[in-house]
């Protein structure tokens, strides 16, 4: 790269190449002329095409983008935006992750709050996940020597003591060479996503949307999209249009928005959103998140399925009810999908033993409405729903009672605003659960019954350590739909708050209404620690030097 100290960089890189070569890990050559031209002055290239550091690293598009930003901001590299995009695209393909490697850390790119219970111990946690997500570490693959060099950089830059255990763990858990990458880097199919895709998109507080998305390839290899979505809850319809880049054959990164600026609030479903999707290796399905908000707190959970082309077989997308109670009669359910035939009869549907399809109320090519009875002794638990050969696994839960409720998300953050930052909101939902076959609550076999209607839930806030009944307006307010808005005044402090959902109609064994809670921290827009600022918009510390 074009740096002010090319001689020094050259000396450093030559030393590093010797060290990396002697480590025995074969590098991944770099052959792109732009990368060689822009990066080669510091990252020297050997006769086999290996460039110092770069050839012993692989990562996601976000990883390479972050590395480029660091080179630009810290090391003074000069790149035009098209050059930067080209370099990220090349490196994400040639030095990227296989789809199977990227999938476990997609939550990082999707900007989800995710419990990271996969950190092996406190020492690795301290080394890797005190200042950023563990997923950021596991988004990289490096040779042992390169993990060592990364640790040395952390030691010099952030004054973290060397942690050999973390280096050893990462060298084993995230090695440069893997069978998955060997297979993907040599055998990935051509990226051919153009066509019609079926969409389901769930937006917390709004319910589920479904529809179709038309994808067109552009001459420069990107994709344009037009997604027509319909609300299951109220039938409202809208179109989102967008443009996306696909990195490494599977990593969809784009933007889309509705036809006008949002009007109904910060969680408006028409809001401009970033799109992050993981496309399955066979390019038949994709899933991910379309998100927006000051802290990316709003988002559709999206699933795409390629429409079945010329096949006449129907496709099942979703059932509008996620649970049915034993002994209930004439439950009206909607099966939503594609290519349903004419003349649907009850015999075309199958929800398993104990559930009788009483009649088909109506049918169109995209929707079948039916009435079903559930026997009093129907087996409890998840049921597959079938229409001919199409099947939705575990689409409907049969239950006898709601045993407990949870509030989703179970831990959350919201933020006060200041002149430079919009508020950080949160949308909560109460989810019903039933004990599973083991009869115990809060175990792995418990059955999720789906969201409880907002009309059947009362929401309240409790600030930690405050006396019961205290006014909580100083942290914010939660509305009847579970939408939390932080207080307008920024008190420059953080508050731990219980978000409490009390069921109006579901009682526990003790005769009291079921209650669920989420742990929310309402916090400040900007953190400062030892002179360093944490910019949550960027998800990283911004510093003018090492912390003291």
């Amino acid at each position, binding site marked *: 790269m074009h740096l002010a100290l090319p001689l020094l960089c050259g000396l450093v890189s030559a030393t590093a190449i010797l060290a990396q070569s002697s480590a025995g890990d074969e590098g991944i050559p770099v052959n792109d002329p732009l990368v060689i031209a822009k990066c080669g002055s510091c990252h020297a290239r050997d006769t086999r095409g290996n460039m110092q550091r770069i050839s012993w690293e692989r990562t996601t598009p976000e990883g390479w983008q972050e590395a480029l930003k660091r080179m630009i901001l810290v090391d003074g590299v000069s790149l035009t935006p098209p050059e930067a995009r080209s370099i990220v695209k090349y490196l994400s393909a040639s030095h990227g992750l296989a789809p199977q490697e990227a999938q476990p850390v997609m939550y990082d790119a999707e900007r989800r709050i995710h419990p990271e219970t996969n950190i092996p111990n406190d020492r690795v946690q301290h080394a890797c996940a005190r200042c950023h997500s563990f997923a950021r570490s596991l988004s990289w693959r490096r040779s042992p020597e390169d993990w060592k060099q990364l640790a040395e950089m952390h030691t010099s830059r952030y004054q973290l003591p060397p942690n050999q255990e973390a280096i050893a763990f990462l060298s084993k858990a995230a090695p440069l060479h893997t069978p998955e990458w060997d297979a993907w880097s040599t055998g990935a199919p051509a990226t051919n996503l153009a066509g019609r895709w079926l969409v389901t998109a769930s937006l917390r507080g709004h319910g589920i949307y479904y529809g179709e998305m038309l994808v067109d390839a552009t001459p420069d290899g990107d994709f344009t999209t037009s997604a027509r979505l319909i609300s299951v809850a109220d039938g409202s319809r809208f179109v989102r249009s967008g443009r996306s880049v696909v990195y490494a054959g599977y990593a969809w990164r784009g933007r889309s928005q509705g036809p006008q600026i949002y009007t109904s609030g910060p969680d408006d479903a028409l809001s401009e959103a970033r799109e992050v999707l993981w496309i399955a290796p066979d390019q038949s399905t994709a899933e991910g998140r379309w998100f927006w908000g000051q802290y990316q707190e709003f988002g559709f959970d999206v699933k795409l399925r390629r429409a079945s082309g010329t096949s006449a077989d129907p496709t099942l997308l979703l059932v509008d009810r996620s649970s049915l109670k034993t002994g209930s009669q004439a439950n009206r359910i909607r099966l939503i999908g594609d290519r349903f035939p004419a003349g649907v009869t009850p015999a075309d549907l199958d929800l398993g033993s104990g559930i009788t399809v009483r009649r088909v109320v109506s049918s169109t090519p995209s929707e079948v409405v039916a009435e079903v009875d559930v026997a009093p002794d129907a087996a409890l638990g998840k049921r597959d729903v079938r229409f001919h050969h199409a099947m939705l696994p575990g689409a409907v839960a049969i239950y006898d009672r709601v045993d407990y409720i949870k509030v989703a998300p179970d831990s959350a953050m919201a933020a006060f605003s200041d002149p430079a930052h919009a508020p950080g909101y949160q949308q909560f939902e109460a989810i019903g659960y039933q004990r599973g076959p083991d009869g115990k609550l809060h175990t792995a076999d418990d059955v999720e019954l789906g969201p409880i209607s907002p009309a059947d839930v009362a929401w309240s806030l409790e600030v*930690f350590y405050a006396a019961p009944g205290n006014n909580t307006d100083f942290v914010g307010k939660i509305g009847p739909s579970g939408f939390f808005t932080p207080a307008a005044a920024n008190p420059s*402090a953080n508050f731990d708050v219980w978000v409490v959902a009390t069921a109006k109609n579901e009682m526990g064994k003790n005769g009291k209404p079921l209650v669920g809670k989420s*742990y929310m921290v309402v916090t400040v827009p900007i953190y400062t*620690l030892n002179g360093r600022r944490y910019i949550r918009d960027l998800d990283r510390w911004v510093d003018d030097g090492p912390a003291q």
Partner: protein
Amino acid sequence: MKNLFLIAVLLTAQAALAHHGYAAFDTTAEVTLKGTVTDFHFTNPHCVIEFDVKDDKGQVRNWKAELTSANHLAPKGWTEASVQPGDELAITGYRAKNGAPSLWVNKIHMANGEDLKIDTSN
């Protein structure tokens, strides 16, 4: 949990009810309370056990006992089923300075005689 690690290092909290780690608790003296679990939250940034404690006069008061995060406890074998409503236990820890029925947990002794393995860091 992404981002929530920050909470432990924030130094800006001043208000009495703000998130304040150890500062909210009287770390000069431990107390032990025996009670019955009413709820358990296996979550970040802190796991919380809610439990009913009967005082000398027979009055029942619901207490909240805070532990470190689920991210820290999971590698030690904890799950959301580790503590169940109805469990009898004795919790030793630091009381909240402001008199709220809250504890910072140092030790959990179960009715079966076992101590749960915990991490006392904030």
